[in-house]
């Protein structure tokens, strides 16, 4: 991940001394990493663990494209320091399907045409999976509110609501 963001590049002795050991589970597999404490979960997933399904949109906690689950809760990976994740369990979009069998929420996004360009979609799906588990969204309005942390610049919102409803039923 050090190569992704130029500001993270450092070959100095002191930077090497600051590395932190982290062991966490990613999509069911234990991963042990030595990380720069500046590394976000997002950059670590994409650039070190080659899990590029999680997308970098704003990188500022404002768009939701980087949504993943940590210990079963939906969070923003761009604002999560991977150094804080020792012993935690991370699930990304790559961890939802069972082999070739899609997760019901993935199936529903395809069936309901819940995306156009697709950039926000993995974040939308991770949010929707968590939303169904949380159990606070029964009306369309509640679904919209519960999905409000995921911005879709193509404006696929009506179909995203339909996809959540299909997955719920």
């Amino acid at each position, binding site marked *: 991940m050090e190569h992704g963001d130029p500001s993270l590049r450092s070959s100095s002795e002191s930077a090497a001394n600051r590395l932190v050991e982290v062991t966490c589970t990613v999509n069911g597999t234990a991963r042990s990493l030595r990380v720069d404490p500046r590394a976000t979960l997002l950059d670590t997933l994409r650039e070190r663990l080659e899990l590029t399904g999680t997308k970098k949109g704003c*990188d500022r906690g404002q768009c939701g494209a980087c949504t993943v689950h940590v210990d079963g809760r939906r*969070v*923003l990976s761009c*604002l999560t320091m991977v150094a804080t994740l*020792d012993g935690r369990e991370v699930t990304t979009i790559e961890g939802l399907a069972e082999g070739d069998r899609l997760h019901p929420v993935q199936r529903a996004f395809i069936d309901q045409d819940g995306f156009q360009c697709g950039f926000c979609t993995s974040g939308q799906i991770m949010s929707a999976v968590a939303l169904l588990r949380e159990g606070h969204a029964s009306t369309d309005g509640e679904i919209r509110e519960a999905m*409000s942390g995921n911005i879709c610049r193509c404006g696929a919102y009506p179909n995203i609501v339909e996809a959540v409803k299909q997955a719920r039923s």
Partner: protein
Amino acid sequence: MRAFDFAVPHDIDDALGLARDESAFLAGGTTLVDLMKLEVVSPEQVIDINRLPLHGIRPEPDGLRVGALERMEDVARHPAVAGPYPVIAQALLASASPQLRNMASIGGNLLQRTRCGYFRDVATPCNKRSPGTGCPAQHGDNRGHAILGTSASCAATHPSDLAVALVALEASVRLRGADGERTMPLADFYLPPGDTPHVENRLRPGELITEVIVPPLPWAGRSRYVKVRDRQSYEFALASAAVAVDLHDGEVRDARVAVGGVGTVPWRLPAVEDALRAGRSHEEAAALAAAGARPLAGNAFKVTLVQRAILRALTELAGPR
């Protein structure tokens, strides 16, 4: 982002012992990591406090106690919060997004920094970020800025919804530092900018918020948080009102009113509360909300908006009057 040392203490005393002047405590990270990326803040040491035993949401005889590391979403959904203090639950659920609420801690929420665009942009002057450099908001883009508690040095709003509800309920914060523990009302904790906008509160370097205490208020079950913003969700307030009323036969006997999105600190409105206690109409009481306001070129609309936010909360709680 600048390099920093990283520590993960498991004990509160260890965390306090590690803290230096240039340290930052990391809980949910939703403010800190964002501002570190922008290089608005660049601590030399980051102390991950997530392993500290600062949890629990417990109703006690002296009030509701909420551990500083409890997450916004969990607090909002807790029966000891949502039942007796709906204004707290509503303020929390009107904040940020579910993902951010799953991350952000209660202590961190109270310490979040302003959303002023000049504060967040290191290419511009800002007295809060770099004392003495000036305040471009005074004559620049100030539509989102404060109208109450401002100074020539700073007009940045305090962004927390939760803090507005807690100030209305006369909540306190428990603080712990290497020198010991102290408790103070949240209303006294925050400092208006004056000539030193970089000093935002009474927290000392190396001191932690450990707990929030909300005193019992039997009629707080009738309370409401109204938040007006540029979009329906996932946005900071332009104006907000935290209101609780003690209602008898349709008459307001007592009230608590605080407002957000308009003040440099969470803003309690004793004049509005007095007017309601004295039996004045809701409109007359709400009209007192912006007394002493000093709007800037772009935010005079907030004078009316904050009055209407209060009026709406009163109407929803007590019916039109």
